[in-house]
């Protein structure tokens, strides 16, 4: 037995418990989901009739699927860009550790540690048309025409929930980016300053490239989160009104558990997973290519 194999064997033995858990709770359900998506299972009957790709064919002809996907795309675009911009702005402001740094950092991060259900309830109160602070505030400053039933208005329901989600996400993005900023070389920034670079140029040509890895991770997490968003929508609107805030995850849940169509729900969930993975992969590849060109 070679030393190399002994080292491998020891590694494998240490890995086995995690591997077993991974196979049991990740790989197994994933394979089962693929199988369910090829059946018309209702979640209860003993027989799962194989129907081939019928669920997928139905899915691509399902108007609600495309509507939910559009909502996810809106969520992904706004829900990724805005937290990144605000998080970066806050991180920049806090980088020099101004007075009250610890308090600011705690306050900014606090929403992220709240449970989604709690965030949903808090924001539902804020939006409440009877006693909500938002409408009261708008009325107080003479913008009564703007106030509305935010969660009941099909034009605003999705954005209203998205704002609540971003409020909770910004703190997380801020903390990660702030940590990333600690690795940005101050020497490089000083050199750029001496070379005559202004603030924006230093940010664009030094800070951003130096933080590429951190930005990649945060963006990928936001993208994946945007495709799988469920809890806040479920708590605040249930996907309504009239599907105006339905996303792929809430639609999947509704099909699988309310409509007793587990097979169709499994197909939806797999499409959602593929979309999240492909989008993240494309993003990371583009970032890497950008880095290489640079």
């Amino acid at each position, binding site marked *: 037995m070679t030393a190399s194999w002994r080292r491998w064997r020891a590694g494998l033995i240490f890995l086995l418990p995690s591997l077993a858990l991974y196979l049991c709770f990740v790989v197994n359900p994933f394979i089962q989901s693929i199988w369910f998506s090829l059946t018309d299972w209702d979640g209860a009957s003993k027989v799962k009739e194989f129907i081939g790709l019928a669920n997928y064919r139905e899915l691509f002809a399902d108007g609600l699927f495309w509507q939910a996907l559009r909502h996810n795309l809106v969520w992904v675009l706004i829900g990724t860009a805005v937290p990144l911009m605000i998080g970066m702005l806050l991180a920049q402001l806090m980088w020099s550790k101004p007075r009250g740094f610890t308090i600011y950092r705690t306050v900014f991060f606090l929403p992220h540690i709240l449970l989604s259900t709690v965030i949903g309830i808090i924001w539902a109160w804020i939006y409440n048309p009877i006693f909500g602070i938002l409408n009261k505030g708008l009325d107080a400053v003479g913008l009564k025409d703007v106030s509305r039933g935010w969660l*009941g208005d099909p034009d605003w329901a999705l954005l209203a929930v998205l704002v609540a989600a971003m409020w909770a996400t910004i703190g997380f993005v801020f903390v990660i980016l702030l940590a990333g900023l600690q690795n940005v070389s101050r020497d490089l920034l000083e050199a750029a300053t001496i070379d005559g670079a202004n603030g924006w140029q230093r940010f664009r040509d030094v800070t951003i490239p130096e933080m590429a890895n951190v930005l990649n991770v945060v963006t990928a997490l936001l993208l994946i989160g945007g495709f799988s968003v469920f809890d806040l929508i479920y708590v605040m609107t249930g996907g309504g009104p009239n599907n105006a805030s339905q996303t792929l995850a809430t639609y999947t849940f509704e099909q699988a558990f309310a409509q007793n169509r587990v097979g169709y729900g499994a197909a939806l969930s797999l499409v959602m997973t593929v979309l999240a993975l492909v989008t993240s992969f494309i993003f990371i590849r583009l970032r890497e290519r950008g880095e290489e060109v640079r």
Partner: protein
Amino acid sequence: MKSTWVHGLHLATGALLLAGMAVPMAAGAQDDPVELVVWDQFTDPEASGLVDEIYAGFTEKNPNVTIKREAVENDQLRQTLRTALSSGEGPDVIFYDAGPGYAGVLAESDLIIPMDEYAAEYGWKEKVAGTALQGTTIDGKLYGMPLQVDLIGMYVNTAVMEENGWAAPTTLAEMLTFCKTASEAGVIPIAFADNPGWQAFHQFSMTANQMIGADAMQEILYNGGAANWNSPEIVTAIQAYFVDMRDAGCFPEDAVALTYDDGNALFYAGDAALHTTGSWMIGDMEANMEAVDKVTFVPFPAIDGGKGQYWITGVGSAYYVTANSEHPAESAAFIDYLFDPAVVADKWVEQGRYVVPVEFEAASVEASPLFASVLDTLQKSLKGEAELGFNVDVMAPQPFNDMMLNGFQAMLNGDKTAEEQAADLQTAWEEGAK
């Protein structure tokens, strides 16, 4: 002749011996320790305490039985029960939603058992209202014992009405006039709130029953009668609540954004004069309203061209025995205990404020006038003295409920007409019936 006598004696002796053996066997079976696993939905601490007490009453009478109870939120139960049962695990007894989308799915998959045999043994069909048992009968077999039966109608805050000199409307025309008058006086006419959307099911049930009548509704929902949701009567029913009443200002502004709790709060506070919802709210009203004695509960107003005014009733949840249970006989005995008229009157009704479809001595129950009026109506219906309409959603297929939920929200936002919704409901019904 002698041999016949001898044979007869032998047979009799054999039979006695067998009978003698059978008695200890039965006694032995009764004494064998049995654990019944029960999953119910009584998660509210007060209700949970009462249910513990009721279950303990059964185990006191049957000391060999222990009950392992798990209270699970309704939503969570809907998500986990099917998986648990289809994997061969799960409880012996469940307290679960009736209707085709819930218990119906379990029955189709043979995950719960028919209980006709036990019903005959314990006389359940004589004890429990036939209309309630219809709600738990699937393909002619009785699967569940309906504990929770509610009335849906209109609460009237008479304090608000009297203060303003108004009378509770009894026709749609009166309702529309009342809504305009109340709105102008700064009072919300009806505390209707439709987020996340299920609340509209009950409003539709009321107006649809008023238009086509209880018999026709019963035929559609329980007897497999052909449904025509795209009829002029149903269009009128939809138009009445979701267009005419909306336009008359009957509901709070942005009703689609308001939750059920918001609507309840408006009614409790006296900001709204009427509340169109179910009798399950009585306990909360008694706990939250100072002037609860000023609240009455009446049927929804009649609609021109309709069949009159009906209270709406429907089975909420029922007790079922699962196919995985190794103790179906003990499970049935447990369920029978829950429906004992004394347990019903003293525990479920008086302490829990549940409206149980069992005939009992209503006069013996200590109840507020509001609750007493609901009990009285239901007891009258049990005796055939009052005709009740039927709640649609509990017996409707899921695509139909989905269309009600989304379509009525769209209508309240002005994005859909009554004709479009009626046509969509019919399509959804047909889709669900496939």
